[in-house]
């Protein structure tokens, strides 16, 4: 029987989780305080995943970049492929939160969406956001 100690990354509580494994099979998961912790521990030992956040270039906007994230967590080993692909992505302002800036990133089947708003140049930011 093998014991693995993990720190859950789902929320800032950072629960210490102990997983007992028997030949690659999970026998028990303890130490988590919610369901997310159990899911995380199972995934972390079989197929670890992460949400990736970065920025992409924007043209014609009041900012040169906009922040983005993967719509859901992707396999950990795809993180650098994801960021590398996004280096070549350029979007046209205006950009709104939730806009898809790249689909099926690094072959994961996951879309990358904007997490910030960028107005076109010449538009009064204060006016555009909310009138």
């Amino acid at each position: 029987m093998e014991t693995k100690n993990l720190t859950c990354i789902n929320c800032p509580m950072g629960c210490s989780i102990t997983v007992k494994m028997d030949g690659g099979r999970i026998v028990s998961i303890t130490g988590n305080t919610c369901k997310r912790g159990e899911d995380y521990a199972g995934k972390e030992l079989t197929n670890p995943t992460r949400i990736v956040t970065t920025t992409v270039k924007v043209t014609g906007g009041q900012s040169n970049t906009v922040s983005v994230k993967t719509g859901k967590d992707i396999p950990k080993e795809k993180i650098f492929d994801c960021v590398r692909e996004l280096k070549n992505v350029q979007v046209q302002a205006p950009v709104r939160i939730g806009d898809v800036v790249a689909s099926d990133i690094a072959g994961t089947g996951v879309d990358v969406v904007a997490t910030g708003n960028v107005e076109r140049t010449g538009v009064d930011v204060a006016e555009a956001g909310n009138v």
Partner: protein
Amino acid sequence: MREKGNDLRGSSQSYDIVIIGGGPAGLAAAVSARESGIESILILERDKELGGILNQCIHNGFGLHTFQEELTGPEYADRFIQKVNDLKIEYRLNTMVMDISPDRRVTAMNRTDGMFVIRAGAVILAMGCRERARGALNIPGYRPAGIFSAGTAQRLVNREGYMPGREVVILGSGDIGLIMARRMTLEGAKVKAVAELMPYSGGLKRNIVQCLDDYGIPLKLSHTVVDIRGKERVEGVTLAQVDENGRPVPGTEEYYPCDTLLLSVGLIPENELSRGMGVGINPVTSGPVVNESLETNIPGVFACGNVLHVHDLVDYVSKEAAAAGRNAAAYVQSLSGESSFVRGTDSGITLEAESGVRYTVPSVIRPAYMEDSLTVRFRVGGVYRNCYVSVYFDGERVIHRMRPVMAPGEMEEIVLKKEQLLQYPSLKTVRFTVEEV
């Protein structure tokens, strides 16, 4: 548009509540004050947009408490900005508050209105905090280019689209430093080490895992920078182990060639305005001393968020700021007889922090004015495992809570119930303490 509200020139304008700062604290305070029935609210923000520091915190992990979903900083800010707009709350951007008088006259300036004075029924201080800089650290060496605070680097990378450098050493394991270790790595930099003076990390555990461990970046506890090499640009730094007194141990020096040093060595509440108006400051938090209503020693002046004490989680900032907004609303309503909120100089119950507990917010409770329950927030001074947080009402232990792990980097809270406090009519002191098993 709220930005184009009343003409503020001249000194005749008055608002029921003026909020200093349009970051997470100011936004949540404004929303809650409006929801408590206050029409006349003005937010003054010095940046060109609302949202404060959240706009550069593009990583995820925000909002699990507030929205039950995991958001990035800009998304979390946007939820509140939308609310502020939906509620038609007025705000001014690019506006710097210069001074607040004890009778709540706010002097501010911007390029459109020039200098103006606003009379406020109540003021909510929500100015946030700033980073401790190199000057506060006494690191020897020249002053070459390439030394940045972690937050400055975060702004450059995430907002301006610039990389501060290629080979990086980070001093301090605060959350911003950890987040930037990952961020710089994703952008192609080589982060060689994170050095932490203390024997434990100053950041959240989850950030050690997902920002350092994921990328094989070493965390060197009980280490500090003892030399910075380079005259025009950083060429390298020397790290050394420190003893229990924080003094470098001779013979443990290690040289790291690098072009960039990031500092993530603490945040300091930004209270120049508060001090200027005579608000009492707690030397431990560097934030205002407040009562259960988050009201300072000056009547009608409230504080919330990182200007009050530095938080780890924006969710808690939003909750605290919402309380400040409700209380400021009640104060304003009491002036016109609409509410029973009574300004008290009555002394109230003193909250004392001792043996392991560094401070509490608030530090005074007047049970008559508190809501049904009150969240007392505090930090501990060291790492404690399997210890109890105990709360004593005068001599009697009333709360005794087991905590598997407590660390200075993670804020703790205990909820006090009003009915519980009312059972002790002659109570003078509530003591918060850490007890070993």
